[in-house]
């Protein structure tokens, strides 16, 4: 299955992936999403910055899928290998935040429920927005 991978050697910690991700999933363009929204949308990808290396982390759609197994509301499910969240069912208990070994489940801008990377399968972005937006090909979408 094609997944998003990040190459630490090339990540510049420019954080553009976060902005492209948040905007793509808000359904607005960057300017509308970040200048003309009541609350700034939250990215589903997280850049970690270090003194020497940087990298972005997002849902691994991992084999174990502890988030799906632990979801108390049946809001998380697997569609063609991709872990997706039904925002209408999520009650914001954050059991998935507790379970995710990568820290990739984020709390939405309202602070009421979670959102997570679905490889841009639910928006109309095609290739994941973080991959498209990375200026240094540090983020790739590929089979490994």
């Amino acid at each position, binding site marked *: 299955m094609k997944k998003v991978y*990040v190459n630490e050697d090339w990540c510049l910690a420019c954080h553009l992936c976060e902005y492209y991700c948040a905007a793509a999933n808000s359904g607005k363009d960057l300017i509308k999403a970040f200048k003309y929204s009541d609350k700034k949308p939250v990215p589903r990808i997280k850049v970690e910055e270090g003194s020497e290396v940087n990298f972005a982390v997002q849902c691994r759609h991992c084999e174990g899928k502890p988030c799906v197994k632990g979801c108390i509301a049946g809001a998380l499910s697997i569609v063609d290998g991709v872990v997706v969240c039904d925002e209408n069912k999520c009650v914001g208990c954050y059991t998935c935040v507790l379970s995710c070994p990568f820290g990739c489940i984020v709390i939405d801008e309202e602070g009421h429920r979670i959102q997570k990377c679905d490889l841009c399968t639910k928006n109309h972005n095609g290739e994941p927005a973080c991959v498209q937006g990375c200026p240094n090909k540090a983020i790739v979408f590929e089979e490994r």
Partner: protein
Amino acid sequence: MNYVIIGNSAAAVGTISGIREIDSTGKITVISDEKYHTYSRPLISYWLEGKVSDKNIYYRPADFYEKNGVETILGKKVMKIDTAKKCVVLDDGLSVPYDKLMVATGSKPFVPPMNGLEKTNYHTFMSYDSVKAIRSELREGMKVLIIGAGLIGLKAAEALSAYKTDITVVDMADRILPSILDERAGLKMQKHIESKGVKFILKTSAEEFSEHKAKLKNGEEVDFDMLIVAVGVRPNTELVADAGGKVERGIITDMTLKTSLDDIYAAGDCTVSYDASSDTEKILALLPNAYMQGEVAGRNMAGREFYYVNAIPMNAIGFFGLHIISAGSYDGEEYVTETENTYKKLVFRDNTLKGYILMGDVARAGIYTSMIKERIDLGDVDIEMLKDKPQMMMFGKERREEKLGGIIK
């Protein structure tokens, strides 16, 4: 192969999923004394609060049984497991044969003997029916007395406060949520809940009840229009015990989730689990635990050999907007930081992270959880980063590549 599952909650759904991974044709029968399509037990408080609709309380989509080829016998109770005849006997006398049996009977509310309790119309807070009953009696402005300041009692309090009720919570312990919080965190949460109008009376219990009044051992009297008893739960172990299976505080299983009886497995809140964070056997009444046990058991029932390991106590819960995530055990060297709105405690032992409590800021807590489960040696991580916040940066490049490049076991 003919599989029978007693129970219809998370462990049962996990079992179905585990069986179907391996065996797509075997017959699966689910038997439950509740009449509902599988619903999420932890959601009952959200349902009562009005945050979850009648439709969304269900744990799996309406076509779940159909898609998985599951037959259901709902609203009927299993009275007996006949190991000789390899069948279960229902309350209407019908017997259902099995090749492999899953006991996922969960737990029941524990109602301790209390003077005069029989004079009250008390409720428990455990099932869809129990909250439906509460809902039908609820009126705005009611006085509600909740016995028990644990997870269930406080979730009930949160739900009921949506009805502008006047809520008092009584508990024998000197603090709230003792099972998941330490003293400081408990106090912080208590203050938060109090600020939402809930009253606590701690370190005491009810001496005697009359129909609308409780007399407490500390001399106080509390009037109530509704009484909820949420002292705790007890695992449903009788079926296995009566059949001669090994039962202690809960049903005893091996690492494959098989009970001491042939072809009989057990999973979920009715079982005793091994807590990898404290090296002890305990009941881990947690939905994720139930599901994952069920899944492993299901695969084994279908003929594979999987082991259920690395279970730890863990909880994610919030009350009135203040969130807590905690996991592991709390015996060891502590690191604590606190701000007005947040609390963090990390517990280290044997050069590993053993437990943590995060309150307020719970972001990325799972990274800590995985460190406890995987018993990651602290020599391999940057301790300052670990203390600062959960982050992948604290691991060395190699472990990070292994984790982010692929698969979690």
